[in-house]
């Protein structure tokens, strides 16, 4: 793996690689070079299998991290390419022509993170959610508690108790507070 990155580093700009295991390495690449790197790794270096494509929301740094994980099945090596996107302009480059299965991942990222992939097949169609108009739910700033409180109502006739005071009342009602 080190040798492979060493060979490629003259032509592409890589960040500092993280060798998590002998067979797994993470490295950051430039968005403009991603397509060329993926094509070369697929066609020349035997990384023919797209294991997954997903995103991580680094909201503190105002960035999305796209992780393209590709696998060389003959040599049993997995390389994860990180691409950092500006959170305000979350647009990635589609790779569905390299791996048709990437279209599904991109459709999910569009829906769940709001990252657009122009040109990807059916990318604007609903994937899992139906009629969703709120913030994309997998973004860190989407507040699940506030959403459920606004959207759903408590069942009528159901009381909500503060666990601490309720347990005190139910279990230790006959004892003074703090006694066992």
């Amino acid at each position, binding site marked *: 793996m080190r040798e492979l990155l060493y060979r490629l580093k003259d032509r592409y700009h890589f960040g500092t690689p993280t060798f998590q295991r002998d067979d797994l390495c993470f490295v950051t690449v430039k968005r403009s070079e991603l397509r060329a790197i993926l094509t070369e790794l697929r066609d020349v270096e035997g990384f023919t299998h797209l294991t*997954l494509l997903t995103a991580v929301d680094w909201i503190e740094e105002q960035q999305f991290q796209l*992780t393209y994980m590709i696998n060389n099945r003959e040599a049993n090596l997995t390389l994860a390419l990180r691409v950092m996107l500006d959170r305000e302009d979350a647009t990635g480059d589609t790779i569905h022509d390299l791996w048709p*299965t990437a279209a599904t991942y991109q459709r999910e990222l569009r829906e769940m993170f709001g990252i657009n992939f122009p040109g990807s097949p059916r990318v604007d169609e609903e994937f899992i959610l139906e009629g969703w108009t709120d913030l994309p739910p997998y973004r860190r700033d989407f507040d699940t508690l506030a959403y459920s409180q606004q959207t759903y109502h408590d069942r009528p006739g159901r009381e909500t108790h503060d666990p601490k005071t309720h347990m005190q009342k139910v279990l230790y009602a006959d004892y003074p507070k703090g006694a066992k």
Partner: protein
Amino acid sequence: MFSFSPDRSQYPQPGPDGKVEVDLETGKYLKLWHGPNHPGITGNMSVELTVCGDEVVEGKTHVGYLHRGFEKLMERRTFIQVFPIVCRVCVPEPDFNEYCYAAAVEELAGIEVPEMATWIRTLILEMGRFNSYMMAMGGISGALGLGVVGQWMTYTRDLMLDRFEELTGARIYHMFILPGGVRAHLPEGFEGRMEEVLSTAERYLADAEKLMFHSSVFKTRTQGVGYIDPALFERYGVTGPNARAGGVAKDVRKDSPYLVYDQLDFTVHTEEASDIYARTMVRFKDLHETIQLIRQILKKMPKEGPVMGNLPNVLHWKIPRGETYIKGESSRGEYGYYLVTDGTGYPRRINVRGPSYTHAMALLEHLISGTNISDVAALMVSLHTYPPEIER
């Protein structure tokens, strides 16, 4: 003798790109929803078919009936609180989620797992594989009208669920593999009771083999049907038995051994035809291999030793910033967990890579065009997909 040759001269012809121009106004086409409540579907998903006569022109997979937002939910839980959630990502084979999550956390937190625990984990994974294959065999035979095989397989799976209950206290969601090891030792006399289950399973499988693989109806409906060109395997991310049925002898257990698979002796079975029959045959042979593996594990495993490593105080457990990917060979193909940590007490991101994600979406949509309505159920079941792991 009855013969039926439909007149297909009025059927639509594909254009140069291989796709048919569908115009519903012509009255030649019909939209047909296959699922989500259809016996030929292994879970809560549906396929929107566009048919012309009995021929499927195109199909679109629809998921979302089972979305529970687990990946989001896990970001709001501490590392130990995630552990009861992960198994629920995949219902029929939950143990892979437990193993992959536990192994990812152990790697990033630098936790050692005792040897005894790795053997018990391997045993649990193989027991889960047994159950999953039993469901697959029952499903494929059921989709082709051999309901009795489905009942035998369900009964045999139930016997294995008894062993799960004995070992873990639960039948479906075991929550037994947790970061650091496993929860308990094997109970006394477990080996003998497991042997009873395995020999019963072998008896039923011998009968099922006669009823399925020696049946001319089964052969006619599966041989040459649902062919996946091996050239598509890489493009569509096909792994596991679906790829092995097309001659690709790849198995994560063999290629990059995890747990104690490097100390076990087993064969990676392949077929060449890459059709429904070949995929079923690969699963059938793998099921026998799993039975053999369970016996081997019980024979070779140490009889005593600790089952749990040293965990930090789980209420104040912070894991340094890092990321990793752990994979294993589930009954359906490569199963993986991508875990990202940010130095706090909560995971930053957990992504589940289930084999059904690629098999049931892009691949199924590609294969379904040009098939017959009556073959759709068998095609879907032969890919052995579980919708919960698509939408998590």
